[in-house]
């Protein structure tokens, strides 16, 4: 386990990269390129912290594998796992993802690092998108573990549908993390903290869950890619809408 002190130092080191990027936007409205540079600076900081401690990926991954094991004895052997695997996988992803989201802003709160980030001339939208990008990368890494583990444990095969499956996973995770990053930030500023995240998130995530499960299940039973096009479109639409709304609302979360 990393020491809290070590974490703070790492954070300070990681943030040293930021002013360089932010300086040229201090006086004017952030232009396209520098906005993206700000997004990348925030994402890079979070990913650097994660790469050094690996605490979120490890805890989420361990949790996900344990859930797969629990499913193996919770589900009656007479039920063919293949017919419910889509639902099992996405429930696991949701719970594992929610578990990791709490850390995203809890870390910033612990050493009051968020104040530092907010004082730097980073656009609030860029801060949100950077956090979103980092959370996306971390959860996608965990999903890259969850899918093979479930495929191994429950003898599933996604062969022939891998590109479509990747599209489903990326689009669903984009929507999931947009809401997750916003409400992760909200929950970090409450007394209940991370306990509140699933309560806020699960009802709001319903559309993502419906389409991700349906598409995954179809690909799993060998239906052609053309059968999941409508689900892919809906997942893409939800990801865009959630990203837009959450980016717009994020400023109201972190203001002092």
């Amino acid at each position: 386990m990393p020491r809290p002190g070590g974490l703070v130092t790492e954070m300070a080191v990681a943030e040293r990269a930021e002013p360089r990027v932010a300086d040229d936007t201090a006086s004017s409205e952030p232009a396209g390129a520098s906005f993206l540079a700000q997004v990348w600076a925030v994402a890079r900081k979070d990913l650097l912290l994660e790469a050094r401690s690996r605490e979120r990926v490890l805890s989420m991954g361990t949790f996900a594998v344990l859930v797969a094991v629990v499913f193996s004895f919770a589900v009656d052997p007479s039920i063919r796992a293949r017919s419910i695997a889509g639902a099992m996988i996405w429930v696991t992803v949701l719970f594992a993802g929610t578990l990791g989201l709490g850390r995203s802003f809890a870390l910033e709160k612990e050493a009051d690092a968020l104040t530092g980030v907010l004082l730097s001339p980073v656009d609030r939208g860029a801060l949100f998108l950077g956090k979103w990008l980092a959370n996306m990368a971390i959860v996608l890494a965990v999903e890259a573990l969850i899918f093979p583990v479930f495929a191994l444990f429950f003898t599933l095969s996604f062969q022939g549908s891998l590109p479509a499956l990747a599209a489903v996973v990326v689009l669903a995770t984009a929507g999931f993390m947009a809401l997750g990053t916003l409400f992760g930030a909200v929950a970090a500023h409450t007394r209940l903290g991370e306990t509140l995240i699933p309560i806020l998130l699960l009802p709001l995530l319903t559309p993502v869950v419906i389409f991700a499960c349906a598409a995954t299940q179809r690909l799993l039973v060998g239906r052609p890619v053309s059968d999941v096009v409508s689900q892919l479109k809906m997942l893409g639409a939800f990801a865009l809408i959630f990203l837009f709304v959450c980016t717009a609302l994020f400023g109201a979360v972190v203001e002092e």
Partner: protein
Amino acid sequence: METTTRPESPALARLGPAGMDDSLAGTRRWAAGFGVVGMGLLLWGLWMVFFYAPTEAEMGIVQRIFYVHVPSAWTMFLAFGLVALCSAGYLWLRDPKLDAIAVSAAEIGLLFATLVLLTGPLWARVAWGAWWVWEPRLTLTLLLWFMGVAYFMLRGAAENPERGRRFSAILGIVAAVDIPLIHLSVQWWRSQHPKPVVMRPEGAQADPAILQTLFVCLFAFTFLFLSLLLIRYGMERLQQRVHALRAAPR
């Protein structure tokens, strides 16, 4: 209008443009007016439900719960719509009055959502033979109820009241975005829930007496909602004043 003789307080000035001058007397008058109209309509509606509307041929007596169920659902949507509207207004203008309307509407919306979820199963047990089925409309309503619960949990758990107001406004907006999405996303499945009988392209299809009764009940619930909303709004404004006075330096 009352003339104010109370000393100016910066804490009260922060409460909004009107501060303490806002006497809430008008709010109370309107609340009482709407309440009287609503109660009158409700009594008339109850008479119609039991003595005027005919018993529906297929479902029998249990159909009469429809006169409570449908107006409750209508009021629930009205309330949550108002929450989203006032939440967006609050984040934009930061007027505590808008927040007070939003939180009052959320509370009443949660009340009517509970009524919908209680009256629905009573009917479903007779008509469908099951208290609950996982059906788009029911699931949607249950989710809306959970969002209402989350709204108050979030509000109560925030580190300070001002944050609570902002956070619950955010949830109010995102929930409003989500509801039509959930509704659309589940429309492709076949629904067991009865189809609309009034708002349909080819015109209303029901006995006129049933429709008249429904409309009286709809108006009764709407007026009662407005009355409850204004009463609760007055309470919320008073509470905001108490908090401001407590927080103010002596």
